[in-house]
Each structure stands twice: as C-alpha cells, then as structure tokens.
C-alpha cells in the first residue's frame, strides 16, 4: 500500500542577530560600549533557528533561510552557525560595524519587509528580544509592515495540516495563552520553546559550502536617518553590598530591627 505524502513548500525565514556574547560582562569606556569582544548569535535567535529546523525535520517546512544584517564578521558569527544548525541558505545584508550599531529596530523591520518581497516567507522566526538592545521590537513591527499576524513570546507552535495557519502558545504575565494565527505570520521565540541543538561537526563542514546571498544595506531602500539620539552612555552605579550575617537568628534580627523589612 502506498502512502501519499503531500510535499511541503513552506518556507521559514529566520532572523539571526550578531550580538556581544551573552557571557561577556559589557563595559563602557569613554562614553561608548566596548565592542571589541566576542560576538555570537543572539541566544533567542538560536531558539528561533531550532524551531524552524524542528519543523523541517517533521517535513512541514521545506526550506529555511537565515537572514542577518551586519558586518563581514557576522557571516562567521551567525550565518555559518545558522546553516550548520539547519538553514539551507542565508541572506547577508552587509554593512560596516558602526552602521549596524546605529540601526534602529524600525529600520531593521523595514529591511525585512523589503526582503519579504523576494523571500516570501510563510513563517518568520525571530528571537523575542536581542540581548544587546533588549528592545523586543522587530517581529511585532514586521507584522505591521506586512499586514500579517503576530505571535510573540512563543512557548509552543503547531502548524495546521493544510498549512494555512499555526496554533501557538505564548507566555503572558500570568500564564499561557493559545492563539490561532493565519499565515504568513511573524513569531518571536521565548526560552521555553525548545533547547537549541549543538551543530555536529559534519554539519559545520557542510555549512561552509551553503550559499550566502550578499546584499548592500544602502540598496535596501530604507531611510537610515536616526530617530533616537543617544545623549549619554554610562554604567550603572554598583550597588554597595556584601553585608554578612552569621546565622538565621542574626538575619531575622537585622531584618526586623535594622531595616524593619519584616
């Protein structure tokens, strides 16, 4: 007996951002963030990549395209790792490092909206926030520009059998919410969605040969004038701490009598 499987032609596009590695304690020197340190893929974007790859393994998604906007080094830092995890090819919107630093989230969303004309993704996967700017904007903005549905802070995703919609579970302040979204959709991925895999060495080698389509930032037709002017950059005051109590009795005593916290 033959089982007929309907071949998928769904395309997942995954936005991956090159950020200062999350283990680095970021420092400010001479009014600027010290950037001459290790960069890697935004951890939430790793989760976004994993989500797309899992759908591909299930035969639901046919093709995964990873997209980054950044300097040359972003290719090694994020695109090759994305392709080692399972993206079939990449798009690199190339610019200088200082141009990438100046990009505002609305500009990034407009770049993705421009790319959509060519990429025509069915689902856009992004991390819920970039750990450098902590803004959590681009997925929501992209949905407005594309006029499509949005699913933020995803903890679960299921694609409908007819591939016209997805059912998602998302993290809200007091629990979880389940929504059904029409496709195309842009989703942002939260911690609980999955645990990203470590790429195997054979896949890392294969990734070196996967194609990267390079485009210039200036050719994206997006107005790069800044809407936000940075007046000051500083490090927060270190909180003075390090107090010690010898035992629970002293702790309770101090909390009651010194700070009257209990």
């Amino acid at each position, binding site marked *: 007996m033959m089982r007929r499987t309907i071949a998928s032609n769904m395309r997942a596009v995954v936005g991956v951002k090159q950020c200062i590695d999350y283990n680095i304690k970021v420092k400010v020197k001479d009014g600027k963030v010290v950037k001459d340190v290790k960069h890697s893929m935004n951890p939430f974007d790793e989760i976004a990549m994993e989500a797309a790859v899992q759908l591909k393994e299930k035969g639901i998604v046919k093709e995964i395209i990873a997209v980054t906007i950044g300097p040359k080094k972003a290719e090694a830092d994020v695109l090759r790792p994305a392709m080692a995890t399972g993206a079939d090819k990449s798009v690199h919107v190339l610019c200088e490092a200082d141009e990438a630093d100046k990009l505002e989230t*609305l500009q990034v969303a407009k770049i993705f909206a421009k790319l959509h004309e060519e990429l025509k993704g069915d689902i856009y996967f992004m991390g819920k926030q970039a750990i450098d700017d*902590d803004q*959590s904007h681009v997925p929501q903005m*992209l*949905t407005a520009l594309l006029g499509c549905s949005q699913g933020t802070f995803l903890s679960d995703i299921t694609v409908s059998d007819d591939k016209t919609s997805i059912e998602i579970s998302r993290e809200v302040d007091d*629990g979880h919410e389940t*929504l059904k979204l029409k496709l195309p959709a842009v989703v942002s991925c939260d911690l609980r969605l999955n645990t990203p895999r470590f790429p195997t060495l054979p896949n890392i080698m294969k990734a070196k040969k996967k194609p990267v389509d390079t485009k210039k930032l200036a050719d994206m037709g997006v107005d790069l004038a800044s809407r936000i002017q940075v007046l000051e*950059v500083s490090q927060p005051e270190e909180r003075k701490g390090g107090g010690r109590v010898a035992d*629970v009795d002293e702790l309770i005593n101090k909390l009651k009598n010194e700070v009257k916290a209990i």
Partner: protein
Amino acid sequence: MFRLTRHALANVLVMAQTNAKGVTASTLSAVTAASQIGGDVTAFAVDKAAAEAVAKVAGVSAVVHPENDILKNELAENCSKYISDLVKSKSYTHVLAPSSAYGKSVLPRIGATLDSQPLTDISAVHGEDTFTRAMYAGNVITKVKMSDAVKLLSVRSASFDKAAATGGSASIEAAGAAEETGLSEFVKKETSQSDKPDLQSAERVVSGGRGMKDPSNWHMVEELADKLGAAVGATRAVVDAEWVASDLQVGQTGKIVAPNLYIACGISGAIQHVTGMKDSKTIVAINTDEDAPIMSLCDYGLVADALKAVPEMTGKL
C-alpha cells in the same frame, strides 16, 4: 498685530490593563511615568468594564474605550489598529505602554503603523522627549532624545511608583468601534492559579535558584514566602528545569521587580538574574558559596545551605 504663541502641551495616552484583581501594577507605574511627562493623561481601556476600573486611577483625567468588546482579549493586531487610529484622530503626543506581555506585543506594532521608533522599558523621564533606558541586561544606561512627532514608550515598572488605584474620577468615552482584522483568533488562556501575591507588585519576594538542588525542596521557598506574605520568584535555571511555571521567572528575560525585601535562596546571582531584582530595597542572599556574585551585591548575606537555613527561618518567624 500681535502673535499668539502657544506651548503645545503633551497629550499622553496610557495603554491600561486590568485583570481579575483590578488595574495592573505595571499600568499604575505607567500612569506615574505619564504624569511626569506633563500635560493631560488619558488612558485607553479595551472595553467598558476595564474603563470603569481605570477611571478610578489617580492622575488619569479621561478614559477612552471602543464601543464594542472586540479588544477584550487584547489581540495585538486588533488593538494596534484601534490605538493607531485613535492616536491620529485625537492627536496624542505620547503613547505609554506597561511593561507587560500585552504592552510589549502591541506598542512596537503601533510604532511601525505610525512610523515612529519606540523605546522599551524607560526608567526615567527627563521631559517630553528625553528618557533613560538600560541595555545589555541593565549593564549599560543610556539617556536618549526622541525626534518622532508621536513618542512611543514602554515603562519599566520597577522604576516608577504606582499611582493610586482609587481616588481618581476620570471621564469615560466610548470612541468608535474596534475592527476585527481576522488575522488572529483567541483560543484559550491558562492562568497559573495562585493565592500568593502578584510577583510584579509584591512588597516581599522569596526567590529560589539551583541551590535548592531538587524540585522536591521547592516547598521550602513557598513556605517561607507564605510565612512572610511574599510572592514567589525563580531563576531562569529552575524554570528551564521545569520546577516551576515560567511566570515566576525574575530577570532580564523574565520579570523585573523592585520589592521592599528580596530573599534569594540558593541563587548565585548571574547578571541576567540580578538585572531583574537589583532595585529591591533590601536584598538577602542565602548561599553556600561565599564568592557567588550575589554575595557581594546583597545587604545581608548568609553563607549557609539554603536547604537548612530556609526552613529554619520559616520556623523561627
């Protein structure tokens, strides 16, 4: 001939949220931030019932809500459309969102719709166009000036005192019908049932980390919290390990809290966690490791095994 100069006052719209307990704590902080900008403060509520609760908040002069209840489930596509249209028709100069899943989902969508670049989690207001916010998990503080005509901001709750939830008597207006965009559909919501205080607004928080060693020990954290009338918090590590639900997570990618008292049990104090609780008035840490980062941050550090010290403390209170 004389020329009349007018100083345009800010006209601020706060996206208000309510839940079963009333107006949310993060909304009340957003109202305070709004009042610091100057000018009139209007609140947007998703429906008439919410509007009635929000009208009682001190500092709010008017509340607007749609004529229908299409927005009651806070679907981002529908809310964004309605609020964007409202901003244009009523010429608001600022839109402030609470730092909640709703605020964070809707505000950026409004930003793209109105072609305005928003800012997330402002921690200070310096007038109508200049604000402070943190980056890099709170390790970098920036002061920035916005140039868009309509300024969109989400408000870091821990940085602003809560406006009083009663005492206000705002006017309530039903302003037009909300449209169903048909892009998304609400299926269900599962809320964590809890009789404990809300983490975001609690005066005291007892938080647990991996130093609690095993989920079977978690009850110690809960019992101390119960004794103190505190909310329960958790680190990302124990949430990832599925000891507790994700809405208990305190940190850069969880909730940012600033209670009067924060007791960290078996928590090492990674940067990402610390950024979520460093504004607490008094920080207590119980950890076996004298050199754990949290031990140099806390006001009172007890070098001890949390599995012994926490129940001991509960017993002695």
